């Protein structure tokens, strides 16, 4: 992506994010949040992170590839286990990176 388009994208996302943050304390300060919006918001983060994780691990240039002969899926699995056991974000990242380096070292 060219730098001018990237800048335009960031300006749009920045303005949008500011409008979200200002919405209920500025424009609609005397209104309650609609129930459907509240219900939708709780699913946005799990859905987004799951889609992005699946895509980052298994989609390569528009094709789905389960490359289990490469280190990354296994490093991700180690991260999932540590995340599940510890619920600690930094420990999860550390475990995933450590497993990645270990497998890169062990695999030819």
């Amino acid at each position, binding site marked *: 992506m060219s*730098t001018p*388009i*990237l*800048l*335009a*994208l*960031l*300006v749009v*996302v*920045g303005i*949008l*994010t*500011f409008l*979200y*943050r*200002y*919405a*209920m*304390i*500025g424009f609609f*300060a005397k209104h*309650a*949040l609609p129930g459907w*919006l*509240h*219900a939708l*918001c*709780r*699913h*946005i*983060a*799990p*859905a*987004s*992170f*799951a*889609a*992005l*994780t*699946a*895509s*980052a691990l*298994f*989609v390569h*240039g528009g*094709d*789905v590839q389960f490359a289990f002969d490469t280190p990354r899926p296994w*490093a*991700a699995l180690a*991260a*999932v286990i540590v995340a599940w056991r510890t619920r*600690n*974000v*930094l420990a*999860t*990242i550390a475990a*995933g*990176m450590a497993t*990645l380096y270990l497998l*890169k070292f062990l695999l030819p």
Partner: protein
Amino acid sequence: MAGKATSASGEFLAGCRGEAPLLLGVIPFGMIYGIAALAAGVPAWVAQLASAMVFAGAAQLVIVQMLAAGAGALPIALTSGLLNLRHVLYSASMAEYVRHLPRRWRLLLAYLLTDEAYAVAVLRYQRHAADTAQRDDGADLRHWYFFGAGFTLWAGWQLSTAAGLLFGATIPAEWELDFAVPLTFIALLTLLLRERAGRAAALVAGLGALAFAGLPYKLGLVAAILLGLLAGVWTVRRLERVKQESAA
């Protein structure tokens, strides 16, 4: 007059102190963002500017991850725009506390309303009665606490972005530090999967991302997230119906 200034600055500094422990978790994110932005080919000055303009860690990591995967501008805007929608919830939750402030204060506090600043400021508003933060003339000064917390996080985010950009320029690509971004998503996702509806949303969105992988410009990600949202809403409805039927 001196007394008034002391209490406003006192609230501000208390907000800075309240936010400080959260910086420990934020600084690695800022550094990962800076490193991954360089790896995705984003110029350093643009990556730093993004931290000031967007000022939302998860969305910035999503933008960088999608750029690295070759996504188009529209899918990136839609995905990060959806992900940031949660800030409307924080805004709604803060409304009763900041509604009375002049507009310039509300504009400033809205800009600083991140996950971490919200978490600290809302506790100050909820736990401490207004009178503990009052001046002699009875004015409520807790917005200075909010400002202190928000400013501390803002400064921490800008500096850790800069540190990541400086550090990232010196490390070789073989270290694969860009992999820290999906690892961060895994960690955050696991924290969010306590509820059944959240698990349904995540499962459908994850499978959808694979099913729609062939769509151009990574638009499949947007479709997957929207399907995940539907699955979450549908699961909540179903669970409520089951509860009602078993009660009746």
